């Protein structure tokens, strides 16, 4: 019995052109639009941001647009403004969570943001060249359409532009080490890579889930059908429901922990409407990322790289009013509790990141008990291990999670990860960023200044009217 009993599903109204969606929060956004009507969250916020754009880059764009070598200044500014709003939309309430008590996340985040902005451009440029140009990058994105358990997903693709460009540039502006018109070709390099991967993945002209009323419906129908055929019905309140949902939660928790309390460990796609009116969410939970040395406890527990869960939700059982699969791969609903409305499920495992899709195998829900124990064992060991690490190690480990993992799947697909390590010192820490380590604790920079600039949108300064597309960093003054 839930508190939502008796309500009816109205979520499909959110997909009607004139609908502005629900408000998931009372806060409003200003960003670079001082003096104008405050922007809301959700579908209405997306509409407002599109209406304020000077270019067409936020509308459905063509393949020819994506193949162009660079954006114009107006397009760069429109992307900067939109990503700033999008970051606020998905993260502003999370900004209230304070200190972890375990991992210094604000500290590692800002170091990673800045590192990405400095170091990714040449690595992404090399990767683009190695895959034969823009089409090769679009093909990396398109690979996600027929795979599960791949990190070429919303959060990683979004992170290239939103984090590497948006937050990275914002952090360096806040630290006053760059000016608003510095590093323009580098900004173009990052954003073009993001645009190409996302366009290739979605294939509908949009880049972000928020541009499509928070839908991430990327999979080909015949591929989806194969997965849905494995779904087992789950009776409400049954042991199967408990086994499935507890496994979902425990694996999600470990994916957070293995990725240092960030969402790179999970990835939702959907919602996909099924023939019987129920909706499907596909959820990748990356419980063992071999590139992290601390993930050895997950390896010891014999955990696969990824579990993928198919969650079938009855929208009428919960009186679903809106469902958002946001750009950081997390599903939120109104009402908030969708767990009790799960009426079907399936679990798949992918042993390694490069296991062929044909070798991804299903696990029956009745057999999840053994996997749950493995997940719990790894969780406790990883927690104990992490709790013994010194602050500096925690910060740099976390920094690696962002700086390496956000582009790792794309480099892996491109076959350029080893080259990036060998020829571009991917795992080395740039001396500028290394020095910033000492600056971020001064005057509350990591804890207060940066979050306020990033989450309010105030720090995303636009490129000026005098900006030159060729301008990198001409002077240190």
């Amino acid at each position, binding site marked *: 019995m*839930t508190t939502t009993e008796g309500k009816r599903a109205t979520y499909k109204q959110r997909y009607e052109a004139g609908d502005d969606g629900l408000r998931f929060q009372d806060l409003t956004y200003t960003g670079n639009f001082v003096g104008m009507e405050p922007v809301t969250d959700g579908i209405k916020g997306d509409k407002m941001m599109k209406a304020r754009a000077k270019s067409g880059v936020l509308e459905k764009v063509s393949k020819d647009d994506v193949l162009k070598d660079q954006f114009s200044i107006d397009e760069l500014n429109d992307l900067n403004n939109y990503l700033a709003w999008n970051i606020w939309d998905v*993260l502003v309430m999370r900004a209230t969570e304070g*200190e972890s008590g375990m991992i210094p*996340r604000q500290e590692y985040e800002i170091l990673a943001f800045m590192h990405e902005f400095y170091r990714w451009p040449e690595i992404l440029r090399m990767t683009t060249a190695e895959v034969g140009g823009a089409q090769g990058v679009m093909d990396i994105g398109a690979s996600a359409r027929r795979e599960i358990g791949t990190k070429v997903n919303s959060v990683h693709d979004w992170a290239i532009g939103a984090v590497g460009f948006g937050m990275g540039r914002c952090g360096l502006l806040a630290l006053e080490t760059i000016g608003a018109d510095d590093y323009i070709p580098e900004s173009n390099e990052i954003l073009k890579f993001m645009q190409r991967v996302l366009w290739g993945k979605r294939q509908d002209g949009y880049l972000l889930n928020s541009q499509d009323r928070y839908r991430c419906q990327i999979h080909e129908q015949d591929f989806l059908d194969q997965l849905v055929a494995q779904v087992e019905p789950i009776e409400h309140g049954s042991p199967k429901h408990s086994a499935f949902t507890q496994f979902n939660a*425990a694996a999600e928790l470990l994916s957070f922990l293995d990725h240092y309390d960030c969402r790179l460990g999970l990835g939702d796609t959907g919602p996909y409407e099924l023939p019987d009116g129920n909706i499907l969410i596909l959820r990748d939970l990356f419980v063992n990322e071999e590139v992290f040395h601390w993930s050895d406890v997950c390896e010891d527990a014999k955990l696969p790289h990824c579990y993928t869960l198919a969650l079938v939700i009855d929208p009428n059982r919960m009186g679903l009013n809106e469902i958002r699969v946001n750009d950081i791969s997390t599903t*939120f609903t109104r009402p908030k509790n969708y767990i009790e409305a799960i009426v079907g499920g399936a679990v798949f495992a992918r042993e390694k990141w490069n296991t062929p899709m044909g070798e991804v195998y299903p696990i029956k829900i009745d057999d999840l008990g053994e996997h749950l124990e493995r997940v*719990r064992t790894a969780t406790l060991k990883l927690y104990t291990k992490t709790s013994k690490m010194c602050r500096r190690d925690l910060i740099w480990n976390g920094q690696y999670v962002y700086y390496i993992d956000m582009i790792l799947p794309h480099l892996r697909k491109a076959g350029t990860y080893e080259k990036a390590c060998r020829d571009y010192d991917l795992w080395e820490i740039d001396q500028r960023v290394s020095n910033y380590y000492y600056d971020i604790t001064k005057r509350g920079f990591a804890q207060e200044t940066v979050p306020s600039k990033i989450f309010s949108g105030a720090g995303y300064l636009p490129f000026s009217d005098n900006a030159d597309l060729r301008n990198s960093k001409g002077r240190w003054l």
Partner: protein
Amino acid sequence: MADVLAEGYNVFDTSKSPSGTVKYLSSPADVISLIQSGKLQEHILLVRGGTTTFLAPALSMGAIGVITMSGAPESHLGILSREFQTPCVMTAHLTGSDSRYVVGATSDEHFAEIARELDGKKVRLDCTDDEVGRIVADD
């Protein structure tokens, strides 16, 4: 009607209404110690931050209820408590105090006051309202 000692954001709507003695956890060692005591499920867990890693093993091992002094349902802990169906009230404030959590501008005394007032009390969580979660005296 029982006294509402504190209230905050309700992470998800549920008819579950766990009761137990509030246990303030201030360090990972506290979390490990509680799990090793075998008494995890006798307690409503009170934590300062709204992140999930700090409480990871407690959530995984079956915590019955959580109160945080910062964070929101979109926080990682909010997401995970919903997935575990562990009732959770976030950014709780004492109903008998004017002190409120403000991002980046909250003194240690705010947290200390909440911990002092709630730690050791027998309470019940009421999470039936869509938005507001309540911590109710259960003596």
